């Protein structure tokens, strides 16, 4: 064990850079999106680099990585990168390889070109039923169904502005969907079912009790087992108890499903960053293709395309026209679930006579 390496950290960031980046990092002058998916960056030195962006499934096999490597070898001297939204970018230094690369990508079929500019780029998402233990929904399947439907917008620049869709399969929100133009969120709706016979063995009762943000969990003795009881009226299905204690699963075929959120953003451009707001409280899980979710996402996208000004993010549009108009334009129903009742609820009430009919 003497030679066991630890704490070496990742490879240094410039190790895999193409030479043109090594020479021009920090000197880039401007970029130009030549067509959907194809970026040109020009340096102060006159040097250029073309990046061809392609959608990926994120959940992929080593075979898929090999597909990418082969294309990279052929057209990019082996260089490529992944974006922060799970697209792959082929880094082209030799302009003459650009068209052949595009052709090869089209031929390959599993790496659609797009995701730049005013498009709907790849959906940031999480693990769902493929790996996690707390999901209310699958991730990859929903993403596939939604992206199939929105495919025309991935490889084009037809949106008023960039549209960022994210998905998280439970309230932990590993997809950090809370600031997305459109967020697809897995939600539970039933309080945990408790395994009284094993709870005390599997979990620490005080930690379990402390895990509940609404203090819905109390100690309880059930059939002589030390266990806990949940006050269902106070449960908001956050799942934190299950994270702390496997004897309290929430998952349920009827209880679980999807909520849609809209109008968040992260960038500071024009308006300050915004949280996503609830658009659709619940859509049942409809594997394998989640048709209602797909339909409602499209409804939102289309209303946005029809109504927004160019350069206006979805949330900026909704705020400009007013949320009453947002619900009218999207045809979505406004319910009591849309009215906040959590900690800052009062700050969301309409304290003005200003509203539209």
């Amino acid at each position, binding site marked *: 064990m003497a030679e066991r390496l630890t704490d070496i950290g990742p490879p240094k960031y410039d190790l895999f850079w193409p030479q043109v980046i090594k020479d021009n990092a920090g000197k880039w002058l401007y970029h130009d999106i030549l067509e959907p998916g194809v970026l040109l960056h020009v340096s102060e030195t006159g040097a250029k680099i073309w990046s061809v962006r392609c959608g990926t499934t994120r959940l992929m096999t080593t075979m898929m990585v090999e597909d990418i490597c082969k294309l990279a070898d052929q057209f990019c001297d082996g260089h490529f*990168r992944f974006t922060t939204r799970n697209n792959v970018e082929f880094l082209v230094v030799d302009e003459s390889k650009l068209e052949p690369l595009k052709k090869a990508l089209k031929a390959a079929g599993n790496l659609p070109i797009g995701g730049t500019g005013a498009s709907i780029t790849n959906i940031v998402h999480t693990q769902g039923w493929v790996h996690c233990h707390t999901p209310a929904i699958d991730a990859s399947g929903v993403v596939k169904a939604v992206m199939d439907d929105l495919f025309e917008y991935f490889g084009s620049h037809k949106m008023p502005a960039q549209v960022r869709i994210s998905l998280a399969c439970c309230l932990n929100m590993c997809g950090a969907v809370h600031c997305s133009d459109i967020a697809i969120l897995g939600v539970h709706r039933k309080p945990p079912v408790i395994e009284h016979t094993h709870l005390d063995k599997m979990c620490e009762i005080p930690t379990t009790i402390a895990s509940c943000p609404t203090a819905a969990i109390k100690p309880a003795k059930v059939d002589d087992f030390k266990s806990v009881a949940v006050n269902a009226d106070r449960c908001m299905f956050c799942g934190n108890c299950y994270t702390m204690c496997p004897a309290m699963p929430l998952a349920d075929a009827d209880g679980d499903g999807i909520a849609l959120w809209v109008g968040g953003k992260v960038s500071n*451009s024009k308006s300050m960053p915004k949280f996503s707001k609830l658009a659709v409280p619940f859509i049942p899980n409809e594997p394998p293709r989640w048709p209602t979710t797909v339909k409602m996402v499209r409804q939102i996208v289309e209303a946005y395309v029809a109504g927004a000004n160019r350069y206006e993010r979805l949330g900026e549009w909704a705020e400009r026209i007013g949320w009453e108009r947002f619900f009218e334009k999207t045809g979505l129903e406004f319910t009591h679930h849309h009215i906040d009742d959590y900690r800052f609820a009062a700050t969301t009430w309409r304290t003005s006579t200003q509203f539209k009919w």
Partner: protein
Amino acid sequence: MAKKHQTPMLDELEKGPWPSFVTDIKRMAETGKDACADLLGQLELSYKDKEGHWKHGGIVGVLGYGGGVIGRYSDVPDLFPGVEHFHTVRVNQPAAKYYHSESIRKIMDIWNRRGSGMLNMHGSTGDIIMLGAFTDELENIFAELTSLGWDLGGSGSALRTPSSCLGQSRCEFACINAEDICYDLTQSYQDELHRPAWPYKFKFKVDGCPNCCVASLARSDCAIIGTWRDDIRIDKAAVAAYAAGEFAANGGAHGQDVKLDIQKDVCDLCPTQCMAWDGKTLSINNKECTRCMHCINMMPRALRPGKDTGASILVGAKAPILDGAQMGSVIVPFIKMEPPYEEFKEFVEKMWEWWDENGKNRERIGETIQRLGLGTFLAAVEVEPDPRHVKEPRSNPYVFYKEDEVPGGFDRKIEDYRKRHAR
């Protein structure tokens, strides 16, 4: 012959124009990877049940590390023995996720031999996620990875794998060397990354400019966001070219044929209204600019951030568990970010120390700040209160005063009061 489960529902996901993960996994299963076949089988069962089939992890990992591996077991292992264990190995990605085929092939090879061959490229935090290993392979995988120069990422109540946008490597907007900062922090805090010792997780993300392409502002306990203090640089000739319709608007983001109306698209949408365009000259009242990036985004060939660059530090972003989601709040409006980033690291260490002392179990730093007050946190990290810390000053009158702020202190005698005021 390769193992195969009937997956009528998943097969539906082979249709449609977007790449299909099912198709991809099927071909891997066909090479004889039982883990992939069983993964599809179990996923099909989940589609049928509308419930996931994974159990809590339990503690698995590699020697000396408190994180980097997420344990995972099937709750139907008899049906799908290939995924009985399906642990995740989080491999720390290189900042900004540049790869060379040669090098990535080597780690894919490890994974083909010792794991399921399934990946997330990449995890939401930024890691290369190797999805599906048996416990007894973990040490081997780790040894092979490190021997090739790779290490694990973070998990648990530790520093998580820092990540960054691509910054100066390919972006003209980058005001700081995002990748270098990301790398430097990762290396400087290896111990914090591998040995969980905090109330909860802690994330760094580094964005080269306020466009926030790695979403640092929404997803990291400490967001380092490039910005500048001097004036936006204007290339007059390029402005004229935009006016003449020679360049596409917004760097071609709406198609090469969409041109710019400088007044309408740039000046009118400037949030501070600090720009003026008279048809010839574009002028910016930089004092009133909030460096939102909009005008620069619209005219990347004509406008550039200033040269006196550094970062704004925003602390506290997180997902909703437990107290609701938070975005980062401005803590240090501006800090220079030159290697070795001493000043920044001093700040970081003060911050961690405070959080470590004051944070409750499973309380993110943003929640500790909420609970104890932004003012308390500022005092702890020795930052002077500044209007830039708030969207607006308080509107409620409930100001807490400390005893030493009030002449005469808090101790009073009722007898003295009653001398002046009968009961």
